[in-house]
């Protein structure tokens, strides 16, 4: 007999790790969603001014999450593709740049930050074109096979969103006479677009997975609802609408984190499970992808802060 122990179908370790990850993520989610600032007190600074800073922080956090998600996901996927074209380094590199720009708010000169963030936005948009070309170059062109398995058409969007979220944060950091309401609206529009775009990508990939687990429907229903409520709140803000949008965005943010736990479970359902992580992290549902939703939702919460303040 040899001592080689091949991977088992179900490992208790994987179950425990997944449960732990889930608990940790829910905890982190609760922490992230807690109200960062006390409500403005009468007599303190202008409510608008009070809202600006937490909004900037939230947008920055959202940008960081988006950038980290895009960097790790992009690097993993492009590693899987063997980085066989030099352009494949650009997406992950630009995401890391955006991450640094958002994370080192104080340490980095503003022009450099804005340059990095603009670059990410541009690289993300160019990425769509590259991925489109990859799809069109394959036999069948625009067909399900290629939409499922060629370079994913929606993925570079997260790099662009990371850049745009960071830029929104830098804009909010500045004291400017412009109406917070206007800014809130712009950020809300961006968030709605980001949520819908991300949902479209998830819908495609979960369709590829035949929605084999009913939980796979959550990220294609909750974010559009959140987008809808945010859109409504931005169009005609009212306390009820803002509260509703706030809740839905909070739920979307949470879902993004919990999504990673679901994807961890998905890793375990591939041949060899977590023991075979070197292979399964590449082929199973991507762990870093779901928090992208959290990132977008955080930016949306920044918009809510601004809209609330100008109410």
């Amino acid at each position, binding site marked *: 007999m040899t001592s080689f122990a*091949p991977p*088992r*179908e*179900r490992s208790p370790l994987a179950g425990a790790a997944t449960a732990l990850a889930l608990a940790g993520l829910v905890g982190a989610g609760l922490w992230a969603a807690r109200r960062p600032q006390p409500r403005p007190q009468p007599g303190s600074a202008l409510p608008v001014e009070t809202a600006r800073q937490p909004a900037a922080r939230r947008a920055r956090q959202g940008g960081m999450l988006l950038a980290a998600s895009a960097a790790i996901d992009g690097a993993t996927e492009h590693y899987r593709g063997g980085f066989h074209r030099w352009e494949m380094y650009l997406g992950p590199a630009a995401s890391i740049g955006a991450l640094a720009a958002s994370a080192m708010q104080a340490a980095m000169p503003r022009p450099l930050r804005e340059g990095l963030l603009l670059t990410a936005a541009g690289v993300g948009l160019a990425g769509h074109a590259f991925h489109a070309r990859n799809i069109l170059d*394959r*036999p*069948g062109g625009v067909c*399900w*096979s290629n939409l*499922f*398995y060629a370079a994913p058409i929606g993925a570079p969007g997260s790099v662009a969103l990371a850049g745009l979220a960071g830029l929104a944060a830098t804009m909010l950091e500045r004291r400017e006479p412009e109406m917070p309401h206007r800014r809130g609206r712009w950020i809300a529009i961006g968030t709605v677009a980001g949520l819908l775009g991300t949902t479209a990508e998830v819908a495609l990939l979960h*369709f*590829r*997975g*035949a929605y*084999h*687990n009913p939980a796979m429907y959550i990220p294609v229903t909750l974010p559009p609802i959140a987008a809808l409520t945010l859109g409504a709140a931005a169009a005609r803000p009212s306390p009820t609408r803002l509260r509703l949008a706030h809740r839905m965005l909070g739920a979307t943010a949470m879902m993004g984190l919990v999504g990673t736990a679901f994807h961890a479970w*998905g890793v375990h*359902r*591939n*041949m*060899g499970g977590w023991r075979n992580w070197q*292979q399964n992290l590449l*082929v199973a549902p991507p762990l870093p992808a779901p928090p992208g939703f959290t990132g977008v939702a955080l930016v949306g919460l920044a918009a809510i802060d601004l809209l609330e303040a100008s109410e």
Partner: protein
Amino acid sequence: MISQGSEIRAKDGRAPDVFSRDGWVAMRQYREAEEVDVAVIGTGAGGGVVAAKLAEAGLSVVAFDAGAFYRPLADFASDEREQDKLYWTDDRISGGDDAIEMGSNNSGRAIGGSTVHFQMVALRFRPEWFQARSRLGYGRDWPVDWREMWRCYDEVEDALKIAGPVTYPWGPKRGRYPYRQHELNASAQVLARGAEAMGVDWSPCPISTVSAPRGKSPPCVYRGFCKIGCSTNAKQSILNTYIPRALAAGAEVRDLAMVGRIETGSDGRATGVHYHRDGEWRFQKARRVVVAGYSIETPRLLLNSSSPSHPQGLANAEGLVGTELMVHSNHAVWGVMEDEIRWYKGPPSMAVCEHWNYDDDKDFHGGYAFMSQGPLPTDFATSMVKNLGVFGMELRRRMALYNHMAGLKIVGEVMPTPANRVELSEETDALGLPLPRITFRFGENDRKLSDHALRFMRTMHEAAGARDIFETAGSAHLMGGCRMGFSAADGVVDGAGRAFSCPNLWIADGSVMPTGGGVNPSITIMANATRIAGHMIGAIARGEG
């Protein structure tokens, strides 16, 4: 250690858990003296489905198979020679002008039958083929309504969670496949490029391996060992779908149990089966018998079950048992591509072209589908030795190109011909059972079809950029031998699978197919078995079975 495949595992109230490396599931057992509702012979595409459906309907079922009960995770090696254990390699006498090669290309022997090592291609019949004679002018009509088959295809495709294209270019509209298509490997892309260059449709092939997790099956890992038994359980075979269902519903499965004779009473009705297990002949009483041993073993068993009430063999009053045996022509065109293809990656046939199944503007009857290929090295080397006669340095030179090869291979419809048949020979096997004697010859239409296919595929290969193109000939699959018919003079069994000359005997495997169609047969066999089981259950409920 007892070598895998020679050890009886389904006994003592338990059967192997096919999703584990060494686990068990509970299994109900029946005494031999107890007259069970149904004895099923063969647990492949036909028998496995029938056993599960009948047990789920509440009948007591014992299913026999000459093959072993494997646990894929532990028993299947990534080694072509080791996995020969999955094939039916007993002696058979094969003759005729185009003697059929028997074994790895057409017969399995295991719980799960040939589906344990099949290549998972899951194509439906063209609806018109069920009335080939009256609508297309060749072969035979099936005593079956194609719409009923269509519903059964739906059921089977869902039971196997077939991973297929979102839209299928040929045939009537159908529901969406339960799982999505797989990623095309490079070999499939060669077919796709060629088809696009020639302006004909192509499609990702619907196949029976999951593209996302399903229960305890992980998604396919694309290592490409499907034809020698999938060691991950991603492949949805009878072994890991219908057999667990049958066991859960209370059926007993007897592995390594070779049925040698079906006993009949003086009234002509079947009374039970004689089978060889654990070194001795035994007898199981049964109220009804379903035979599903495939196109060689089913006729062989019936012919060997003659009795005073069935002097020419069971269900053979009209002398039809064993006649009109069919294969699929399996000719292929191979070429060398500039780019590395590594065609062994992934299931072997990931893209399909059914153009000539649905286009009737051709100079022959019937049709053919062709698929991209990915033979394992020994398989490919063997086919070059056989077809091209190359050996030594020349074989080595050609095998060095293995990673740059691409191939297109047909599943070509062969016309039913009475002279192509299975009979019993004088020689006997180790158990004393007469060996089957198989006679086969391709007809003129069959040759026209394969010539057409070779020309078409050569052009397509050239259009896809292949060089050093060469052809091989061959056959695959078995169909017919105990066909369904409209009357006793027309077939061995009726449209519900019941023998015309033995009222409690059914046949539910590939042998009942009156025509072969131009697609791989197993999903049709399963759908038909689903249909037959449904009719059986109805008849039994009405007290007519």
